[in-house]
């Protein structure tokens, strides 16, 4: 019974959070949703992707010299699973959905990744899929509601299937570097429905 109690307590906390999140949803009438742009999403918005109802828990902005793009931290209201989506306005709106995080141990040494960026050439194999060097660039990162900015360096690799492997380099020389890598893929803007802004 001790285990059952423990699991019930965890369940209760999760459910309380799920109900709390849900009660923040103020639905936009169906006939007005098509007028809404993903660029208007903010902390507290809700979207629908397939069968998943997602709550925007946090909003991050990245800026480089030429452009800026937004990343949304999303929480599935039914499972509390966290995922990320990037939205960028170019000629059209580009939406990229993070599929999974890749452990750094699965990737070549960071010195080798830097060599690839210097050569502007190289490939990395992750889970039998080959990703080819595409681009590298620096950007400034900030959270919605905060003026604090952090520097981040990106190394982008693309597979023939159009999937993206992004390696992010955070930190600085003095305090040390931290790396994170993600696989993501582009989705069509129309596959995201705004439920609540």
């Amino acid at each position, binding site marked *: 019974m001790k285990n*059952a109690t423990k699991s019930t307590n965890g369940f209760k906390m999760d459910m309380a959070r799920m109900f709390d999140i849900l009660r923040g949803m103020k639905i936009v009438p169906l006939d007005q949703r098509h007028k809404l742009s993903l660029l208007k999403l903010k902390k507290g918005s809700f979207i629908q992707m397939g069968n998943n109802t997602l709550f925007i828990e946090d909003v991050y902005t990245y800026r480089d010299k030429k452009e800026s793009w937004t990343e949304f931290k999303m929480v599935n209201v039914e499972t509390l699973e966290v995922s990320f989506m990037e939205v960028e306005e170019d000629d059209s709106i580009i939406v990229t959905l993070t599929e999974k995080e890749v452990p750094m141990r699965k990737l070549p040494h960071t010195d080798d990744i830097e060599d690839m960026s210097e050569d502007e050439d190289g490939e990395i194999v992750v889970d039998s899929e080959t990703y080819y060097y595409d681009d590298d660039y620096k950007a400034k990162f900030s959270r919605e509601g905060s003026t604090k900015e952090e520097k981040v360096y990106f190394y982008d690799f693309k597979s023939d299937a159009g999937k993206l492997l992004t390696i992010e380099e955070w930190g600085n020389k003095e305090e040390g570097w931290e790396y994170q890598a993600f696989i993501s893929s582009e989705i069509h803007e129309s596959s995201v429905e705004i439920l609540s802004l």
Partner: protein
Amino acid sequence: MTGIILGLILIGGVAFFVMKKKGDTVMETPKTKEEVEVDTYKESINRLFTINLVARKNILEADVLKFLEDTIDGMRNVTEEITKFKNFGEQSVMFSRIGERYLPELIQGYINLSQTERETNSGKIITDLSVLKSEVSLIEASLSSSATQDFEKTGKLISAMFKKFEGDV
């Protein structure tokens, strides 16, 4: 000789699968009463969450949502306790019916209406939700008294009220 060897292998094989099957059966320990209660509790809360999610995604009228969510919150407060009273009479059956039948049917029925029909019927759904909420409050009050006898008595009262409600639906 070959026949004997083949026979022994065959018997050994059959024995192995019989033992394995027996072992598999032994592995399936029946759930304890507490585990069943926990499962029932989780199912009930998940069901309430789904009703709330469907409502939030489809109902714009703030007053309807408020009455629904007050009812849901009332039910969330007593679900764990009522699960333990599962075998204690018809009031727990009534409680299950609210979550499993009345509430989902009421909400789905309302969602299926056109906007004009909703405007005409919002008063009715609020009245129906108020009835359900009162029932939940009665159950909550009975549970807090912790007297099973009183609980049973209230069950009879609720039962009578529900007959009226079922007639309305």
